[in-house]
């Protein structure tokens, strides 16, 4: 996932990834970004396959 791209597919799961990432990161921007990506790549893309 790239900050410059909006993702059209599976946008509900991306919103979940954002929610998960911001909660896990707890204010630390890098951790928020990391966990949003991790959730999206590991659990949203898996759902799409």
């Amino acid at each position, binding site marked *: *996932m790239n900050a410059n791209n*909006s993702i059209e597919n599976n946008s509900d799961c991306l919103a979940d990834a*954002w929610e998960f990432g911001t909660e896990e990161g*707890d*204010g*630390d*921007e*890098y951790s*928020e*970004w990391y966990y949003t990506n991790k959730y999206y790549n590991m659990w949203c893309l898996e759902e799409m396959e």
Partner: protein
Amino acid sequence: MKKNIYLLLIFLSISINSQEFKGIIEYGKKSIKKELSEKSKKRKKENPELFKKFEKVRNAISEAEKKLTFKLLFKNNISIFKVNPMLQSDNKRAYETAIGGYDAGIYFNDTSERLLQLNAYGELFLIKKPKLKWIILKERKKIGKYNCLKATTVIIINSKGKKRVITAWFTPKIPVAFGPLGYSGLSGLILELEVYKKIYYAKKITLNSEEEIEVKKPTKGILVTENEFQNVGKETMRKLKKNNGF
């Protein structure tokens, strides 16, 4: 006679100074079970399906991270801390589930600086970390055969200046000022470190073994201060939010 004593003292001094104090410490990682946050409590009521999904993901991470191991290598006044890469080749999926954002970094410490080499936002960074101020508390506990003292420090975790308390248990019996994730500056080795919801704990301590220890300072990456790195994060998250309509 006097001359001989002087020569002996000079010899002893050279001999002591040339002795290396080196070691390899293996650390594990585990999660701390904390109370549900207010957000999680709300989600549990309003969206139980998503709540369950998040809990499932968190449990998967907690289980997988039990298999993660890290190595702290030190030689005299320099150290390096990094994740053990063997696991990655064993099982890529388990490794990716287990590893946390800052776990994949390489942490270098010497007497004058703390550096973190980290792949973030698609770039390689070399982050200069600020010096830590520790407060040593009254609490004591035994970890393995070592009597440990408790210490805390406060770090700034984001561009807005949010603070977080970090707790370390260290032993003066092993007089090196190092620990996991580049935490350093105490009068003994950190055997246990509590960072937010995770604990890094020493599993195996090897001191002065015959094994050759190489501690190389990382040099590649965009050199930034911690605050500059946090500002890159702020801008990346702003763009991500805007481009996806959150």
